[in-house]
């Protein structure tokens, strides 16, 4: 058991920035941390790390941080594991956080385990749900699972204030709730796209502290010799409000053109099941699911997607789901709010025409 169980305090969100721009997952984490902090009676502290990132502090406050710590060094512009680890371990030793949250991105999932091993505490990967309050945790379990509430209550009691970290395992077949009761900080990486954003409070004030980490040249133990940004426009389907998604049932790569027309009409993007990415019909960046992206748009339109569990894991939290599939027994219908049994190749062109007509009648361009 670590010694700081009693003293450790507040929820720290490690902001992720690239080229000086803070990632959306950071905003999501700040929103979630706010809810958890209220249940704990503690504060939300954003930790921005990088080179020349002090001007990000205001945005952190507006998205929900009570205070901001800016960990700044000219050499921290691009992510490198060791100096980022060392700087954040210094922050943890100085401030004694109760909870530290990271985005479960290719940075967070490299950085957080290294930090957890160095401070010797627990880390839970790729969480999709977090709770402090036991009643809220039970409400969540009741709504989403078959878990045995009484057994958990006997184990933890109703007053437990540790972080209950819930995550999928076995390719989304099972969910598990994990705790780190005897070590601090409690650490988790959280999957992008699953926590809801809270409304930005423009002009919100809060304390901003600048911390200069103690780093030597030896800490920069790898050399970035080249940086290549992915070619073309990088589409982030997790940012889209509407996704029109194609599965094997669309029949050909060319049919994505039809889906694109509908997506354009609805102000959205096209996305895909894994099968079509594997077939080379569409780029990997648009893949939804366990091995692709997790999305929660306002509208997810699943076109010719049967709904393998790995796909459902990536989209079932969408606000509204429309499924179109020829097979009336397709599992996608189990999660769809509106299910249409039919051939997407017939329905989609007709839907596009109908949308056109609708916009014309309502004089929307």
């Amino acid at each position, binding site marked *: 058991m670590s010694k700081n169980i009693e003293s450790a305090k507040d929820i720290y969100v490690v902001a992720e920035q690239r080229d000086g721009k803070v990632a959306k997952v950071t905003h999501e984490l700040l929103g979630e941390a706010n809810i958890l902090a209220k249940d704990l009676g503690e504060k939300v502290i954003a930790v921005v790390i990088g080179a020349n990132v002090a001007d990000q502090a205001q945005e952190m406050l507006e998205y929900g941080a009570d205070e901001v710590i800016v960990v700044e060094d000219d050499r921290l512009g691009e992510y490198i594991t060791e100096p980022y680890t060392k700087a954040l371990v210094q922050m943890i030793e100085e401030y004694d956080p109760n909870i530290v949250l990271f985005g479960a991105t290719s940075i967070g999932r490299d950085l957080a385990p290294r930090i957890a091993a160095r401070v010797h505490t627990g880390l839970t990967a790729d969480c999709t749900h977090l709770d402090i309050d036991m009643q809220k945790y039970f409400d969540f379990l009741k709504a989403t699972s078959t878990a045995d509430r009484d057994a958990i209550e006997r*184990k933890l009691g109703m007053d437990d204030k540790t972080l209950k970290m819930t995550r999928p395992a076995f390719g989304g077949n099972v969910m598990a709730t*994990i705790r780190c009761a005897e070590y601090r900080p409690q650490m988790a990486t959280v999957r992008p796209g699953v926590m809801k954003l809270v409304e930005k409070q423009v002009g919100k004030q809060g304390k901003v502290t600048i911390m200069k980490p103690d780093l030597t040249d030896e800490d920069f133990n790898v050399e970035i010799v080249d940086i290549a940004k992915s070619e073309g426009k990088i589409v982030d389907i997790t940012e889209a409000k509407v996704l029109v998604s194609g599965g094997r049932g669309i029949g050909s790569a060319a049919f994505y053109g039809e889906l694109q027309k509908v997506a354009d009409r609805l102000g959205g993007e096209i996305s895909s099941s894994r099968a079509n990415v594997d077939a080379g019909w569409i780029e990997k960046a648009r893949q939804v699911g366990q091995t692709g992206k997790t999305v929660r748009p306002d509208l997810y339109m699943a076109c010719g997607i049967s709904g393998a569990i790995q796909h459902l894991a990536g989209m079932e939290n969408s606000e509204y789901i429309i499924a179109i599939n020829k097979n*009336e027994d397709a599992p996608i219908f189990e999660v769809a709010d509106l299910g249409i049994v039919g051939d997407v190749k017939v329905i989609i062109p007709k839907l596009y025409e109908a949308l056109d007509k609708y916009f014309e009648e309502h004089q929307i361009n």
Partner: protein
Amino acid sequence: MKIVVCIKQVPDTNEVKLDPVTNRLIRDGVPSIINHDDKSAIEQALRIKEELNDGTTVTIVCMGPPQADVALREALAMGADEAYLLSAREFGGSDTCATAIIISTALKRIGFDLVLTGRQAIDGDTAQVGPQIAENLGVPQVSYAEEVTVNGKEVLVKRQYEDRYHMIKVQMPCLLTALQELAEPRYMHAGGIIDAYNKDITVWGFDDLKDGLNPDDIGLMGSPTRVVTSFGKMQKGAGVKYDVPAEEAVQIIIDKLEERHLI
């Protein structure tokens, strides 16, 4: 040069089902395989060995129950030189932190220039053990490796991010975590399979590693994280489903989009 590849034997998660009554995973009859990313790491290690052709060796390390022996035999049949199975009751129930402590203790004893692990396992999906081994060994890590080139004591790694690549130069000793895309694994060949069963697998239990291991840091009791409960997801209730002519279906969609203020 000594390359050590850490692998995990995992159930093929595509075949895993949940018992609706007990909420437990039904593992009976589910095939066990070498985790995909780890197999790609083995392939990469073998390619480096073959290319250098200078006496470089490939050692495989796996922590798991005695049955994980099968995974090690497969790696030997692919062409690895030697294999270690870390297996003990004391290791059971370890989380990523405790697992990394056990494996890194073994690696210190085995010795290494380059350590390769898979990026993540398909059962736990944590991606934590590789970086945590690197931390315990005090060596640099480069995770999400998509291409690896060895030049003397230096390794050049193409490291994948969501929106970019870094070409990273790192000095050995170091640890890399392999993406499945890193190297398409070869098949075992007949001669290799026969050789694999003639080679010895070294089995290390707690006593073999106890000089470097604090029993309080391993196993279920030494793990900072504990599972409170695991459960099957209750699927969100299905909404309405229509099996009607296309024109009618389209009108239903339009009405719903309007009702939800999506148009």
